[in-house]
């Protein structure tokens, strides 16, 4: 089947040309900087130690928040699928987390803690309900007839997880991760922009706003997109390798 959401090089090129033309027509860098200028600014930033330190700061915190939430969300979903009161206990808490605007959480966390690990906490809170709901849905969707077969044959828990649960829950987990990865980067960076932890990408974006430094704003935005894409690709590739290794065991 043909993929309809495929990004074509010619289409990307078209929009870059439109962007460049619009920027040249406007003639004001402060309103719309050209893609060439953004690339040039990115090149200047990339040779500085501060650039890599800021990128590393945000990547470490948002990435760690995602990984911890993915692990805990999976564990809680596994428990909730087996123990009804765990699901009942978690339902209002997770619904509250999902309903409260991210900005409220950010301000609350800033009141309670320092801004240093703000993006970690926000990333964690955004990802946890998404992964939990998806994994729980996956466990619920497992084929009951296969589960009965495993029960009758007394297939040990380890083999049940490996051969029955993992293949059936994995597509749900992967779909949850794809959604959560996009959300955690958007929310994590928004948190950094508001909380301005020193040495973060969010702080750099805030500075770009204060000084009306549009090339910096675009360059850092491009960095965020690239890091989040890289993180997603690496995570999903490692996940795939892990699953294949599990299947070979």
């Amino acid at each position, binding site marked *: 089947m043909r993929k309809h959401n495929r990004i074509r090089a010619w289409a990307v090129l078209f929009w870059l040309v439109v962007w460049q033309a619009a920027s040249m027509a406007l003639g004001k860098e402060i309103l719309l900087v050209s893609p060439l200028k953004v690339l040039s600014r990115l090149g200047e930033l990339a040779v500085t130690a501060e650039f890599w330190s800021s990128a590393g700061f945000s990547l470490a915190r948002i990435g760690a928040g995602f990984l911890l939430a993915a692990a805990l969300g999976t564990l809680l979903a596994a428990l909730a699928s087996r123990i009804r009161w765990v699901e009942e206990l978690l339902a209002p808490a997770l619904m509250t987390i999902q309903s409260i605007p991210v900005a409220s959480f950010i301000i609350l966390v800033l009141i309670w803690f320092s801004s240093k690990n703000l993006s970690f906490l926000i990333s964690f809170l955004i990802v946890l309900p998404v992964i939990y709901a998806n994994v729980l849905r996956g466990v619920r969707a497992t084929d009951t*007839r*296969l589960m*009965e*077969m*495993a*029960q*009758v*044959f*007394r*297939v040990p828990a380890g*083999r049940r997880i490996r*051969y*029955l649960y993992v*293949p059936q829950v994995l597509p749900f987990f992967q779909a949850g991760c794809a959604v959560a990865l996009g959300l955690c980067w958007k929310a994590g960076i928004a948190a950094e922009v508001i909380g301005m932890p020193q040495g973060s990408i969010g702080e750099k974006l805030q500075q770009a706003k204060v000084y009306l430094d549009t090339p910096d704003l675009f360059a850092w935005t491009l960095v965020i997109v690239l890091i989040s894409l890289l993180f997603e690709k690496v995570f999903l590739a490692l996940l795939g390798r892990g699953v294949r290794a599990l299947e070979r065991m």
Partner: protein
Amino acid sequence: MTGAMDIEIMQISKAFEGKKVLEGFSAVLPQGKTTCVMAPSGGGKTTLMRILMGLERPDAGQVTGLEGRRLSAVFQEDRLIESLTPVSNIRLPTPSLRREEVLAAMESVGLRGCEDQPVRELSGGMCRRVAILRALMAEYDVLFLDEPFKGLDAATKTSVIQDAKRRCQGRTVLLITHDRSEADAMGAERILSL
């Protein structure tokens, strides 16, 4: 009189949404023998088997003689893991089986050259034979067969029944079928009607 290892079914009743499927059914499945259950469709054969396998709870009555015993089964459906090969499916409940043993058993029921294909690529009849071998090669004390030879052509059925009869010799077997000739070919010593 029942032996110590016989399975005794006492006054089992089961209803679904008010509709009685089993009502006060009693029987003894003698240790080491094949017992066949015959009944028309909807007569409660599968429900009886599910109760014996511990997958349903009876509304009334009880079963003795199954405590702590290892079970094996061919279900009405194949219940195979579609992404796995026949060898992996057969070894799922019995990882101690050697690949060579499994391949030899597959050969004996006419499954050759498909050992490394995922079962989703196999025909219905081939999947059925994989499900039968999984049950027969498992380590079990009691074997439940719910219309196990359904969907097999006449020639294949004959060879599979011969193989199954040989492999479950001396074990306690409950066979559910509509076909009296299958019960005879499996050497069923008792025929129960529901």
